[in-house]
Each structure stands twice: as structure tokens, then as C-alpha cells.
């Protein structure tokens, strides 16, 4: 099934929920409302679309714009060789979104990483904790307002930096 037909079917079935269809440098991108994420993804996972693989799940911080954060999902279909990108915007004071853990196994660690780096909260995630940073680290490192060199050491250093 070609990607054009998938987009046609999405236009017919979810015309209120998808706000924008576009093509970026040859990739297909759809912009979706937050509440309808699970329905759209379940529809795409079934036959005949067969988007069986969640390739990636990440977040971008557009500081200065409103809404500030944008979640980006990449889906892939092995049998049809189609790729699709889904984008959702989230505001800073309402940073919650549905978790995809009931559908895919690797969503568990991917969402923990986004929580660790950006502070996005995932509803119904079984175990939302930090993944890369250690307990006691304050702040979310990949946000634009976290300075690059701000270190929070756990054990005391023998001497300090010269600068």
C-alpha cells in the first residue's frame, strides 16, 4: 500500500483530528491533536497499513514560541516500506501526553529518556523515572534554558576548575 493511499485514508477518517499534512525534504509529516494520538496510532498499526515498528520518539524545545514543546514520533512499516512522522505540540504548563507502552515494548525506555531530558509526563507509564541522569540531579538538561556547563557533582572534587 503506497504512502499516498495511507494519507488519503487518514484524511477521510480523522479529518477533525489531523491539523496539517505536509512533506519535508521528501518525508511525510502529519500534525495531530494530543487527544487523538492513541486512536490514530492504533489505526495505523493494524492491517493493511501495518506500521508495526516504532522507530523513534523524541521531543524538541522551541523556546520562545507558544506552545513550547513538540513531540515527534517516527513509524515504519516493514511489509510496505513506508515511513511516517507524527508531530504534536504541547504547552509548558500542561506537559502531559498518553503513553504508547501498551502498544510497543521499546516505548518504555524511549519515554523515560524524554522525561529525563525534557520533563514531559506520560500518563499511564508503568515506571516513569530518570534513565540517564542520576538521582539527585535537578533540572532537565536538554531544555534550552539549562546551561551547557552547569555541573552537579555527586562526590566532592579534589580541586576546582581554574575558570
Amino acid at each position, binding site marked *: 500500500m503506497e504512502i499516498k493511499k495511507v494519507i488519503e485514508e487518514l484524511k477521510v477518517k480523522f479529518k477533525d483530528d489531523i491539523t496539517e499534512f505536509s512533506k519535508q525534504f521528501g518525508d511525510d509529516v502529519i500534525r495531530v491533536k494530543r487527544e487523538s494520538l492513541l486512536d490514530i496510532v492504533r489505526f495505523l498499526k493494524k492491517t493493511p497499513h501495518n506500521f508495526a515498528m516504532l522507530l523513534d520518539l523524541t521531543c524538541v524545545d522551541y523556546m520562545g514560541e507558544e506552545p513550547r514543546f513538540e513531540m515527534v514520533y517516527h513509524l515504519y512499516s516493514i511489509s510496505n516500506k513506508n515511513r511516517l512522522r507524527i508531530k504534536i505540540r504541547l504547552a509548558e504548563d500542561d506537559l502531559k501526553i498518553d503513553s504508547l507502552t501498551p502498544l510497543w515494548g521499546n516505548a518504555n525506555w524511549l519515554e523515560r529518556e524524554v522525561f529525563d531530558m525534557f520533563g514531559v509526563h506520560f500518563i499511564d507509564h508503568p515506571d516513569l523515572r530518570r534513565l540517564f*541522569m542520576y538521582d539527585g540531579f535537578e533540572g532537565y538538561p536538554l531544555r534550552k534554558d539549562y546551561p*551547557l556547563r*552547569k555541573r552537579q557533582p*555527586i*562526590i566532592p572534587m579534589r580541586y576546582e576548575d581554574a575558570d
Partner: protein
Amino acid sequence: MELDMVGSPDGGFFTSKLDRAVGWARKYSIFQYPFVTACCGMEYMSAACAHWDFDRFGVGMTTFSPRQSDMLFVVGTITQKEAPVLRTVYEQMCEPKWVIACGACTISGGIYDNYAVVQGIDKIIPVDVFIPGCPPRPDTILDAIEKLQDKIQYQQQDWRWKSKK
């Protein structure tokens, strides 16, 4: 390469000869603990295997228990999360002990100057030999082992009534 005598021997002729003899024995049988984390580990593997073998220098015995080793070979980037682990491993080793810091990341943080990396492991533990390079060639690692062996031979050995700081 003969180094000048490091530190003045207090005691005279016989204790300095004894220092040399004990140093000779210690330098040719070093039990090392490879604390390998990142890319430099690949060059460490090459230095350990057939072409650049460091077993010929007496350093071949890799123990994986810090309590039975006397040299800590820190290879690869040390992050803030790994720093307590390194400190614990260093404190578990018995005297006399030496530390080699291999790679640019262990000397000063390397190309990573950010929130997550310790800028040099001598902020955590005292270091004897630094090996520059990103990653250093296996020849450089062998050269560093020779320099450490010179240092072990000519240092003032520690006896039970005085310890090395």
C-alpha cells in the same frame, strides 16, 4: 632511560639498594585492573593482543578484583554518574598502588565540556602517568607503561612504618 633519584634516601647505602631491589621486583610483575568505559578501550584491546602485546613487559595479568590488583588503568570517559564507582574501586585497592589515565577524556574531559563529564580524573583520584591522544596509539600505551616502570623502580618505596600519600 635512567631517571635521577626521586626523593632523597634517608638511611644511606643499604636502604637505597634495598629500595632499588624491591622496585625492580615490583615493576616487572604488575597486576592491573582495567577500568574500561569508552572508545580508548578499543586501543587498549589492541595493545593487549598479538601485535603490540604488553604481556612481554610484565603487565599481562589482568585481575578483575580491585583488592588483588596494584595498578588501576582508567581507560575512557568518566561521567559524573560513574565518579563514585571509580572512587570506590580506588579505595578498595591496597597500598602500594599506581594509576594510569589513558586518553584525553581522563586528563581533562577531552572534547566533552558539559554537564555530564568529569573534567579530568585527577579531580577524584591521584594519577601517576597521563597518556594523551584521542585515542592514543597502542605504541603510546606501551611507552607509558615503560615510564611507569621507571617511576616504580626509582621511587622511594613505602615500608610499613611510612605510607605514600
